[in-house]
């Protein structure tokens, strides 16, 4: 659906993206992740034909974004960052206008507008003036606009920014639903969101792709499996030596805790779950035990690690 090859965008004086190459298959929900100024919006603007790349090619739905931009634009629904709207229009007027502009035939316009307004939860504000809406509603009007012509590819630049937790959950559900019949490319800062909605994550940093994989693989590859944390009543030194002897362990850190306990973090070499092995050892030794957990890595850890690596 998207085929980006060695994309470069240079603005006067600085390079926003240097040589991005990635592809998105039909039916995927891909999350675009990166710190501010990493080039997420720039890439999305190029894909949606708002501006051309300095060099490199971007093929969307089989058409080149540079010289076949009209064909591309017929097939995408794009929601820009900050969701620009016409404040003087009513919501239903705006959606009808956008549907007409995007070539939805007159006979289907009303139906399409109704469908997306239900999907986005804005049926009760259809007659309101956009300028009077809250940020959350505006965001969803923008989302409805992106969907109104039932595009093959949906590009959303920070779709959940400015929404409250309930609305975020709704939008997340909506995106997941959309993913069943559409291809979705979204950018976000909110990491749990990517973990929950996206089938693949592309992390970009300083205009380059830092990582691209499923959220699970990313977590595994970048951090190894989750560490096991155990708190036992014994001498720190002895405990450390004991756990070092486990075959799949790469690193053990023990530190004394209160009440004669010590806290030990055990890192496995690969993705193994060490809890049972650890428990067997503790039982054999007869140490007192008050915690045994496997810490799960969040995508946030991966994100921070990847995007701060070079500094």
């Amino acid at each position, binding site marked *: 659906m998207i085929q980006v090859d060695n994309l470069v965008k240079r603005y006067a004086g600085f390079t926003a993206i240097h040589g991005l190459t990635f592809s998105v298959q039909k039916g995927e929900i891909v999350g675009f992740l990166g710190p501010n100024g990493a080039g997420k919006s720039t890439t999305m603007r190029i894909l949606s034909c708002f*501006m051309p790349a300095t060099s490199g090619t971007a093929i969307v739905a089989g058409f080149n974004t540079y010289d076949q931009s009209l064909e591309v634009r017929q097939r995408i629904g*794009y929601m820009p960052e900050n969701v620009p*709207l016409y404040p*003087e229009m009513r919501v239903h007027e705006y959606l009808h206008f956008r549907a007409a*502009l995007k070539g939805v035939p007159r006979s289907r316009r009303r139906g399409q507008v109704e469908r997306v307004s239900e999907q986005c939860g804005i049926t009760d504000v259809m007659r309101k003036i956009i300028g009077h809406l809250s940020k959350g509603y505006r965001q969803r009007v923008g989302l409805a606009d992106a969907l109104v012509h039932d595009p093959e590819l949906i590009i959303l630049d920070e779709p959940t920014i400015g929404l409250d937790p309930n609305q975020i959950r709704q939008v997340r559900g909506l995106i997941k639903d959309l993913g069943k019949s559409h291809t979705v490319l979204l950018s976000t800062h909110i990491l749990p969101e990517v973990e929950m909605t996206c089938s693949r994550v592309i992390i970009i940093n300083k205009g380059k792709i830092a990582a691209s994989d499923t959220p699970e693989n990313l977590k595994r590859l970048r951090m190894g499996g989750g560490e096991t944390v155990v708190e036992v009543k014994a001498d720190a030194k002895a405990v450390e030596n004991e756990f070092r002897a486990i075959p799949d362990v790469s690193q053990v850190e023990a530190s004394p805790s209160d009440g004669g306990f010590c806290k030990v973090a055990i890192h496995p070499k690969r993705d193994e779950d060490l809890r049972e092995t650890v428990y067997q050892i503790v039982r054999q030794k007869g140490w007192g035990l008050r915690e045994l957990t496997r810490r799960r890595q969040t995508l946030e850890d991966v994100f921070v690690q990847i995007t701060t690596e070079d500094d």
Partner: protein
Amino acid sequence: MRNIWILFKREMMSYFFSPIAYIVGVAVLLIMGGSFYFITYILSRQPGDNYTASQWFFNGFFFWIVMLVVPPVISMRLFADEQKSGTIETLMTAPLRDWEYVLAKFFGACVFFIVLWSPTSLYVFVLRHFSRDTTPLDLGPVVGGYIGVLLVAMLLISIGCMASASTRNQIIAAIIAFAIGGSLFLVGFGFFYTSDKYKEFFDYISMLGHMLEMSRGVLEWKRVIFYLSSSFFFLYLAHCMVQSRRWKN
């Protein structure tokens, strides 16, 4: 074509939802109404000299103030506002050609200008109804004058479109448009102060000269072609500015 119509409708809607439309509308009618009142008052005291009533009306000081100021004001927001509010991004990522965007804006402003002016056509009926003179008012010069108004307005609005497309600040757009339109108008005065060789050139560009002729009922093709082609030129520049976003570097 379909896209032009869709955008044009939205453009008209936003004109009539903005307070500026009503402020400008009231100002135009006040000024032109005042101008009409004084012209009829003066002409009813003493008969006109070399100029006819419609020449007075379509060439007075107030007329040119309105003609030079109103087009920049109604065209200043056309493109600048879309850029400033970011709606250009949703527009330009919809399947819409750049020239459709430019033409829709241009027609929107022209039609709005016509709407502003249309109440003045009632003056003709006022004159016919209240005139003691038995000879009816000659409609030729009046129609010629209105065609002249439309042609001059098209040129000035196309200049306004170009100015608005060049910046995201409406005030700057209005100032640029007024400066270009005003300069063009002033250069046209050369027509009255030059002779033979240059006269022909100034005759071709003098808005004041053209309006004097047209409000006499004389409409020449070369005038029409001058206004249409120069409007086209400025719209082409506006189109280039809109399109420059799509240029690589």
